[in-house]
Each structure stands twice: as structure tokens, then as C-alpha cells.
């Protein structure tokens, strides 16, 4: 029996997140192009794909940071209530994973420019692409959760857990 307290106050989702989502989708598409090109051995296309995927992913991160700033400017701080905390935790963790991915992508990109062995390049690009799609998928799930289903889901869980 959870005491009925209205302590879960979902925070408004900044519209910027929609834009960020679009940017991340673009990033994934670019990775997919690079991966296809690597399979065909078109090094130029690979380079183009990798570079644009990296730049769009960076743009996504900047966008996320701006969304955070917007929220805290409106008084929604990390510790204000658990809904906020979860928002920052999930987006933050996801952002860290993207950052980690960018390190890997950076190494692959350098390899693509410095003439890595085609087979090795292809493997790296394919692995990066897989990771990128995975992170996109995770982001979509997080976004859906935060955008609206979170409150309902929490209510259900709360019912179950206590």
C-alpha cells in the first residue's frame, strides 16, 4: 500500500527534444549509408557517412544540453522531485553512451582517412552502425517513456511494487 501522495509530477517535455530525435535519426541513416558503402568498398562514401554521422551525433548532444538548460532555467532541477531526477538520469546516461560511441566513431573515421585495411574498416564501420542503431532505439524508448507514458507506467508499477 503506497500512501497516496502526489509526489510524482511529470515535467513538461521541451519541444526541442523532437528536433533532437530527428537529428539522431539522421545520424543513424548516415551510419547506415557508411556501412553499405563499406560493404561495396566505396571509401569516399564511407568517409562522408562517418563524418556526417559524427557531426549529427554531436549536434544531438548539444541539443540535449540545451534542453537541460531550458528546463533548469524554468526551475525543473535534478533534485526537485523524482520525475525530474529520472529525466536527467536517463537522458544523461544515454548521452554518455553516445559520447562513448563518438570515441569509437572517431577512431574509425581516422582509420578511414588514413587508409585502414578495407576488411578492418568494414568491420569497424559495421560495428559502429550497429551501436548507433541500438542507441537510436534506446533513445526512442526513453523518449516515449518520458513524453507521456511515464506517468501511466509509474502508476502501474507503483500498484505492483507496493
Amino acid at each position: 500500500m503506497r500512501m497516496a501522495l502526489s509526489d510524482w509530477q511529470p515535467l513538461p517535455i521541451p519541444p526541442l527534444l523532437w528536433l533532437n530525435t530527428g537529428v539522431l535519426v539522421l545520424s543513424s541513416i548516415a551510419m547506415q549509408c557508411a556501412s553499405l558503402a563499406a560493404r561495396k568498398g566505396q571509401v569516399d562514401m564511407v568517409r562522408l557517412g562517418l563524418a556526417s554521422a559524427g557531426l549529427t551525433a554531436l549536434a544531438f548532444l548539444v541539443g540535449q544540453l540545451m534542453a537541460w538548460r531550458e528546463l533548469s532555467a524554468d526551475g525543473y532541477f535534478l533534485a526537485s522531485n523524482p520525475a525530474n531526477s529520472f529525466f536527467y538520469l536517463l537522458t544523461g546516461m544515454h548521452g554518455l553512451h553516445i559520447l562513448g560511441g563518438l570515441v569509437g566513431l572517431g577512431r574509425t573515421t581516422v582509420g578511414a582517412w588514413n587508409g585502414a585495411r578495407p576488411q578492418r574498416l568494414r568491420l569497424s564501420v559495421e560495428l559502429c552502425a550497429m551501436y548507433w542503431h541500438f542507441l537510436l532505439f534506446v533513445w526512442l524508448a526513453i523518449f516515449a517513456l518520458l513524453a507521456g507514458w511515464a506517468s501511466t507506467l509509474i502508476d502501474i508499477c507503483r500498484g505492483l511494487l507496493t
Partner: protein
Amino acid sequence: MAVALVLVLIVVGSVLFHFLSPWWWTPIASNWDYIDNTIIITFWITGVVFAAVVLFMAYCVFRFRHREGNQAAYEPENRRLESWLTVVTAVGVTALLVPGLFVWSRFVNVPSDATEVEVVGQQWQWSFRLPGKDGKLGTSDTRDVNAENPLGVIAADANGQDDVVVEAADLHLPVGKPVKMLLRSIDVLHDFYVPEFRAKMDMIPGSVTYFWFTPTKTGTFQVLCAELCGQGHPMMHGVVMVDTQEDYLAWLGQQQTFAQLSAPQQMGSAE
């Protein structure tokens, strides 16, 4: 040889210890002898399995120990034996589980005639609240806890005004009447545990948990806290007295209600 003998001694010793040692559960003082019976069933089934496995091992060690010229058998598997053992085990496990689940469904379904008693834990003492004449407990909120309102009863709730508040003192219960213990904490986890009642449940800040039982013996029982709650945890003792109906009513008559306790404070704050 010595090894086989020690294995046998372990079984014999364990069984003798079980039956002869003075250490056994405290005499029960509630309706939960169902639980005791389930424990006894479990002791029998598991005891037999333990003895069988270890004695079989002892036999193997004795009979198949290495001697010059021995050769082990070569038998990778034996489907029939393996399925047979699986089935027997499954039956034994079911024999444990089914009575257990029956008793559990009794444990979680509170009889409708149970009276509610609230227990509030805090570092490191127990307080209690009983419904007043209306038979209903008022709602509470940790945010409302302060020196005058130690249990955080919501003053605006009319049901709470006649609640009997027993702050950091002994709880009395009438014998033979089922009670539903509503458990609450205002700081950390605690657990209301009276070994003689067999039942226990954690108390969680922000939630109300419960268990129920019927006291079956009059007497004085010690409450222990059974969930680590900081350094005062082992000192967090309390007392439950199970009284006859008359003694209980006499005790109840001496207790103060929430309204009585907060009256002077309300005057004070009216200035």
C-alpha cells in the same frame, strides 16, 4: 574408512542435535501454528533427503574407495534413472510448496472482523495508534510529523480525532481477537517482530504495510526490530501485553486520544 565414518557421524550428530538440543522455537502465542506445522513438514522432508544423500555418499566412499586393481565403471548417463530422480524431486518439492502456499493465502487475507492497530517505527522506538469509538483510523502523513504530533496524524481528518495514541510505550491487545497490524515508519526501514507471534513485516517510510494475527495467550511479549535501521537497531525493543478483555478495556480507558493530546497545542498556536 575414516572419511565414511565421519560422514555417518555428521548425519547422526545432526539428527541427535535436532532432537536433543535445548534450542528450539519459543512457545507460540498466536494462531500461526500453521506456520509451525509447515516448518515441521519441511524439517522432515529435508532431513530425510539430507540423511539419504550423505549416507549414500558414505556408502560409496566406503565401498568404492581406491584399492589396487580397482577400475571404475564407464557409464556416461542413464536416462531412466535421471528422469526417475527428477520426478521424485518434483513431487517432494510440490509437497513442500502446496501447504506453504495455502498458509500464505491465509496469511495475506485478513479476516473481516480484525481490528486495526497501527504501529509506527522511528529510530529507535515504537509507537502505536488505535482507532477510537468510530472504529476508524485517521489518515496520516510524514510531512505532518512534529513534536506535538509525533505520528503525523492529519488533523483535518475527522476520523483521526478520537484515535488513541500510544507514544513510545507498551501496546496492549485483547486475547482471542484478530488484529490487523498496519505498519508505518517515519524515517527508515524497521520490522515489527514478536517471535512468539511468528509473524513479521517490514515497515517502509511512505507506505503502509500489514500483517494479521490472533493472540492466543495472555502475557507479556518482547517486540524486536528485525530490519537493520541504524546503530540503535539491536536496542529497539518494545513490549506487547496480551490482556483479558477487562484488563484491556481498563488500559484503554487510561489512554489519551489524538484530540486530547493536541488540544493544548492548538490553544497555544492560536495566539
